[in-house]
């Protein structure tokens, strides 16, 4: 276990042959080995379930399992696989339809396909990278049951997580990583305590919380009424969502990814046409308006998919910073840009937001993940927005960047902005939000005050268990 950015995923990717180590040695069953690629890892009996699943969405379950598997026949390779899948399904309770296309499956089902893939290659060691972040509490129990069964069969399981309760729930022994170093190695979980592990993990006493001033709610800045929206495949995934965000509050939306949050956000900012319902920002009805009109009202948008909606990798830091402001004076006059002003202003932002970059002319794509997120925040927040829409704003960031992002969101809340925060990370939601809504299957299934909310209740609402 270890915090975000502690190097857990990098380490596992080395074991799986995706990254090459600079130095050091790897032993499998007592023999030193060199792993040059996933194929070598598989031959050594190492299987991996990545945090972002490595599945081809347009292929079927059976085809994904057959991919790269040498034991299948040349013709109709899926015939044999289908039988094997059914057998594994019986043995481990991994229920799955071999003919379904991956894109049709839920997240939990996709994870089962990943586990199946590893089992079909007779993985003796199974590495799972943060496998529970995407699961509902119910699916989580199911996963633990399957893992227990695999371990009982004599397979080794490496379970990567940053959640203490999961370590004590499932692990026999635990190794803690901090900033790329091992700070505790193979300690039996029976001989340690959650408090001790937490201290090892972060290097300081836990219980630290961002100082959050009591909320002073102002007038309504965002009003969503009975909103309906479809996904790219034409299925209705937002089904009548209504809520309000006031100035000076953080309104969090919890939910397992794929329950319509992405489409909801896109429908609000104008990237997706709503089928029905209304979106009102301040007193302007912006339903079905273009992103330019919505963002022009003082809306900051911190997108979920940073590579896709966050930056233009080939353009410079300065050109990326001015992406929202370029339309207006003093950044441009008439049809011309004020290049000198833009440069001066960019230098200031780089300093203010502590963006680490060789210069403002460096291509933004060559920055690290944390600095890319700082660049996006600088761009979005420098214009003192009235409404901030943040999707998974700290996902994949290191500790320092995460804290900076959270502090910035709270700062703007205190200065009177309304914040709509979409996250899968319940700790983050509880820490930042004033009110939390839970979204499931395209609907808001509950809204509660963060001070009164507890994780259990949110979990139940997220999973739909009664």
């Amino acid at each position: 276990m270890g915090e975000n950015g502690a190097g857990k995923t990098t380490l596992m990717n080395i074991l799986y042959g995706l990254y090459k180590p600079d130095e050091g040695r790897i032993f499998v069953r007592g023999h030193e080995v060199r792993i040059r690629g996933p194929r070598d890892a598989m031959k050594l009996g190492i299987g991996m379930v990545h945090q972002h699943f490595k599945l081809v969405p347009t292929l079927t379950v059976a085809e994904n399992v057959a991919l790269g598997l040498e034991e299948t026949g040349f013709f109709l390779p899926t015939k044999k696989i289908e039988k094997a899948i059914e057998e594994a399904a019986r043995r481990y309770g991994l229920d799955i339809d071999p003919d379904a296309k991956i894109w049709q499956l839920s997240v939990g089902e996709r994870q089962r396909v990943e586990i199946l893939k590893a089992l079909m290659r007779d993985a003796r060691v199974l590495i799972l990278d943060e496998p529970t972040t995407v699961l509902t509490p119910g699916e989580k129990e199911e996963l633990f049951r399957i893992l227990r069964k695999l371990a009982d069969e004599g397979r080794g399981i490496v379970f990567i997580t940053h959640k203490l309760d999961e370590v004590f729930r499932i692990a026999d022994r635990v190794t803690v990583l901090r900033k790329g170093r091992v700070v505790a190695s193979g300690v039996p979980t029976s001989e340690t305590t959650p408090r001790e592990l937490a201290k090892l993990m972060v290097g300081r006493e836990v219980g630290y919380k961002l100082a959050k001033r009591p909320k002073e709610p102002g007038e309504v800045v965002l009003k969503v009424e009975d909103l309906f929206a479809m996904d790219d495949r034409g299925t209705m995934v937002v089904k009548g969502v209504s809520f309000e965000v006031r100035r000076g509050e953080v309104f969090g939306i919890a939910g397992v990814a794929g329950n319509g949050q992405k489409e909801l956000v896109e429908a609000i900012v104008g990237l997706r046409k709503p089928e029905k319902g209304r979106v009102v920002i301040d007193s302007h009805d912006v339903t079905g308006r273009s992103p330019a009109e919505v963002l022009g009202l003082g809306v900051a948008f911190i997108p979920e998919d940073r590579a896709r909606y966050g930056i233009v990798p080939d353009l410079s830091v300065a050109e990326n910073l001015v992406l929202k402001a370029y339309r207006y004076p003093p950044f441009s006059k008439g049809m011309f840009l004020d290049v000198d002003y833009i440069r001066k202003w960019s230098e200031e932002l780089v300093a203010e937001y502590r963006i680490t970059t060789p210069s403002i002319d460096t291509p933004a794509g060559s920055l690290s993940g944390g600095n890319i997120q700082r660049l996006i925040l600088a761009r979005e927040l420098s214009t003192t927005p009235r409404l901030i829409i943040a999707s998974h704003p700290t996902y994949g960031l290191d500790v320092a960047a995460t804290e900076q992002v959270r502090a910035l969101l709270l700062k703007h809340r205190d200065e009177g902005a309304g914040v709509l925060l979409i996250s899968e990370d319940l700790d983050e939601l509880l820490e930042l939000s004033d009110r939390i809504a839970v979204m499931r299957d395209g609907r808001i299934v509950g809204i509660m005050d963060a001070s009164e909310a507890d994780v259990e209740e949110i979990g139940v609402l997220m999973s739909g268990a009664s």
Partner: protein
Amino acid sequence: MFLPITVRVEKRLEIPPWLRLAVPVCSFLVALALASAVFAFQGLNPLAIYGTTFSRIIGTRIGLSFLVVKAIPLLLCAVGLVMAFRAQVWNIGAEGQLLLGAVAAAGLALFVMPEAPSAVLIPAMFLAGFLAGAAWALVPAVLKAKLNVNEVITTLMMNYIAAKLVEYLIYGPWRGKATWGFPFTDLIPGNAVLPTVPGTGIHYPTLMLALLSSGAVFVLMEKTKLGYEVKVFGGNPELAKAVGMRPAKIIIACMLVSGGLAGLAGVGELAGVHKRLMYPESISAGYGYTAIIVAWLARLNPLACVLTALLMGGLLAAGETMRTSFSIPYASVNVFNGLILLCVVAGEVMLRYKVKLVVRRSVGHEA
């Protein structure tokens, strides 16, 4: 046994300035070397060919003027392509757009206003040529902007259609009376012919227009909102949409500018070089395609296109010399074209990535 060395590819944080120049230059030289090998393999002495063509082109006033004449349409087409390519709009249709410019100019000079004085007729021809080229580009532009139809295919097809249109005109309704049976139109009236620098074939009004448009596109790309939008759209179309840019506007603007500039090149070829409409392959010696290389060799910088247009103009002129002096088919010049473009585009990797050899300190056994 494997060597204890790992090849590591890293993204460059910054491109050293000398490398920006060195990579295209080296690419060009490598291409030249490869082309020599091809010629030698074909039983031709590359050194003899290079020597003769070089001295005939660079060494004589006629040769030099010929080079500039070839560079004019290349520069006009390339500068427009720079803008389109920056937006990742793959206009491969400059060839057809150029032909349409020539058709418009011919129509105006022969049938619409042959009596008009030069001061009116020549600007009118350039205007008509720009509009005709832009209109020809508008078809793929709208199909791409509204329906997302692959513009590479549509612009290519429009090239073939344009060539057939020119053939139709010269064999049919526009066929001239005084052409000794050749499928040409009549010569355009004298007042429609572009003036040239004395003693050369350089039709300077088109040259001025070409240089002007190179500067104009530079300003457009670096100093205006539209240019900025073009770059953002080319780099990340999803994000461009998310911040409220209108892709249709950007695509159509790029196609209209590049089509229009190619149209101007067509006017120059008609009124400055051939003075009549004739076979499409005579009107344009593949300028629309060669311009792609001019643009790419200039690393999509409109000012640098002036240099690369002269370079490629020299190459096309060399192609003519090879045909007359060594009876090598003119299309063989495409060997150079293709190799240069390949080397340049392959050389880009040196600009974007650093290739490092890392020595491993500990080596395990093979898996």
